[in-house]
């Protein structure tokens, strides 16, 4: 009897689990804009182009740890393709799939869309991009990741949109030096995530420390660690003049509050993923507004009031984070690639890849920092914006227009 009961319960649990995980993957389509012009009969096509519709894949995270970011970037992608066409002819249809930030899901979802998409508008997350790299390469896929690790620049066809994390952090240091917030010979504490993202950011710090004679205290954490008090105590005891972060927003908040509690009043510099608008509603808000500087490839919302209006009308209730600006900018770069391919008369995957490789000096009208071009192993951009937290939509306001730091070009070509 009990065994039967146990079996019944186990079956019920299994069934619920299936239902629960089942609803975390869903397909959504984003429609294209109005009707196109004449069919470009002399443009060669193969996979992913049906009549006057181009299918692009989106592997994003709508339910996992980066769900908020994934939603925002995808919203940006959608908004862009609602209003734009390729070659004034083709509408773009996005095949949006949710990986939940699990590489295994990403691989499966890609194999399901493999034969129907021309290129990948977005693939979120370094681990998923890395997992899919061999397939993307084999299929001649042009892809835009929403991560800035140096290793991603080594994947052919994958276009990192902005400076890699090491260049970004080094640019951030330059800003601190320029503003007199940091001086040669100072001590800096750098908290970084284990893994690619953190390690790449740390490389930037190490390069600056060597060039400018800084004393660097390194503290490695896992993304699960949320309480930064102990590390901040250590930094306070060492008398740091600045704190540098390559972490997630949660740790940023904790650093700010702990620094305040311990009376450590120094600038905090972070790479672009350290900030989320939600931080300004928490207890760390005031401290962050005083001390945080964010180096990143994306323009703050206050630079694009019209786009903001459009975005809020289209996605009422969504917090306008930088992810949406980035998603919109990604669409712009993809459009430039596809337009070039179309002009070359070759909208096959190979043609698109060729167009991607020949792209130079990509200008997105300031949405994303200027991109020099996509060369394997090179940071695609040497420039970064500096932004500061403020009570504006998106939570960040601009502190410095895109600029190239002193060490940027040295770091950019160092990828191995």
């Amino acid at each position, binding site marked *: 009897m*009990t065994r039967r*009961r*146990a079996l019944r*319960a*186990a079956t019920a*649990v*299994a069934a619920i*689990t299936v239902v*629960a995980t089942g609803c*975390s993957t869903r397909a959504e389509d984003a429609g294209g804009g109005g009707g196109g012009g004449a069919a470009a009969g002399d443009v060669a096509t193969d996979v992913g182009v049906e009549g006057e519709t181009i299918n692009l894949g989106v592997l994003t995270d709508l*339910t*996992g*740890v980066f*769900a*908020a*970011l994934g939603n925002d970037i995808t919203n940006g992608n959608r908004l862009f393709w609602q209003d734009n066409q390729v070659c004034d002819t083709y509408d773009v249809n996005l095949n949006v799939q949710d990986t939940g930030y699990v590489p295994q899901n990403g691989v499966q979802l890609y194999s399901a869309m493999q034969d129907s998409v021309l290129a990948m508008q977005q693939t979120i997350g370094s681990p998923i991009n890395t997992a899919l790299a061999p397939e993307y390469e084999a299929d001649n896929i042009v892809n835009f990741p929403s991560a800035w690790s140096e290793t991603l620049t080594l994947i052919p066809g994958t276009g990192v949109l902005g400076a890699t994390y090491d260049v970004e952090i080094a640019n951030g240091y330059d800003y601190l030096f320029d503003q007199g917030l940091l001086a040669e010979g100072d001590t800096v504490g750098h908290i970084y995530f*284990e893994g690619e993202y953190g390690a790449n950011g740390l490389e930037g710090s190490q390069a600056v420390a060597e060039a400018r004679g800084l004393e660097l*205290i390194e*503290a*490695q*954490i*896992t*993304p*699960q*660690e*949320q*309480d*930064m*008090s*102990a*590390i*901040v*105590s*250590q930094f*306070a*005891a060492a008398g740091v003049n600045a704190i540098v972060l390559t972490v*997630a*927003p*949660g*740790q*940023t*908040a*904790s650093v700010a*509050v*702990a620094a*305040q*509690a*311990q*009376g450590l009043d120094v600038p905090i510099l972070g790479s672009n993923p350290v900030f*989320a*608008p*939600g*931080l300004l*509603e*928490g*207890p*760390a808000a*005031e*401290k962050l507004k005083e001390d945080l500087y964010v180096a990143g490839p994306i323009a703050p919302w206050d630079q694009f009031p019209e786009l903001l209006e459009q975005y809020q009308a289209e996605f009422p209730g969504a*917090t306008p984070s930088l992810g949406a600006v980035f998603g919109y900018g990604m669409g712009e770069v993809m459009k430039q690639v596809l337009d070039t391919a179309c002009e070359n008369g070759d909208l096959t995957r190979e043609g698109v890849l060729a167009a991607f490789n020949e792209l130079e000096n990509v200008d997105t009208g300031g949405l994303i920092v200027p991109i020099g071009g996509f060369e394997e192993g090179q940071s695609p951009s040497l420039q970064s914006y500096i932004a500061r937290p403020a009570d504006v939509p998106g939570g960040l306001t601009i502190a410095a227009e895109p600029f190239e730091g002193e060490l940027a070009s040295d770091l950019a070509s160092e990828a191995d």
Partner: protein
Amino acid sequence: MTQFLSLLVNGISLGTIYALIALGFVVIFKASEVVNFAHGSLLLLGAYVIAVTSDALGFLGAVLVGVAVTAVAAVLVERLVINRLRGAPVISLAIVTIGVDIIILTELVRRLGSDILNVPHPWAGESIRFAGVGISLNRGVAMVVAAVLIGLFFLAFKYSNWGVAMRASAEDGETAALMGIKQGQVSALAWVVAGVLAAVAALFLVGSPTPGVSPTVYAVALAAFPAAILGGLDSTGGALVGGLLIGIAETLATGYQDEMLFLGRGFGTVVPYIVMLVILLVRPSGLFGTRELTRV
């Protein structure tokens, strides 16, 4: 010295929160003989409910609702799953709780996304400073509340009917049942208590110096696991000592990571498990756990 004191105070405050969580593990284990792996997601549930209801109900109302919802969720797990499987091997029960945990956690993570939900603690980001040693007011309040709750718990455990019934059931279930103790009730009440403790721990875990409610709060409950085990899984006093020990060890290891570089970076997270291993090697039933005697 300031650094040491600062780390010590922070470690103790973290430890008291661990102790609340660890007590939950112990209470449930004593009453239902289940190692409850769903404790982490119950804790996250409490934090989530407090955060989403605080706009409408205000801080105090939200806390009460959060604690109530967590307690009800805990008792539902007990009634709907654990109680129906009574008599099943301990291992099966533990694995069932892992299943429950995954279900609750998946839903919560989906709802949370990667944004940070903030709980409007009245003490917000205030801090207390004394002779160079700083601690967030949130952690200060946590220490006081945890001390009161743990004190009340020990009194209830020792003197209330429920406490006596529970100790009797834990000692010898069959005899206790023959004496008229309703084990179902004892067990249900234990889950309620564990739920309440988890929600209170959650309340302080999502305040400064840790950021608001995010899926990673769940991971903290895992760090309380070694605390419960090294204290002895069936010892309430052990949970308290274990919690403090783990909190202090973890904080010191993180704060002095530069002095321990030969162990590699990020050593702090590993410390709870190392402390647990070392103690279990010396005392297999934990510091205060009942030794199992087997006649051969």
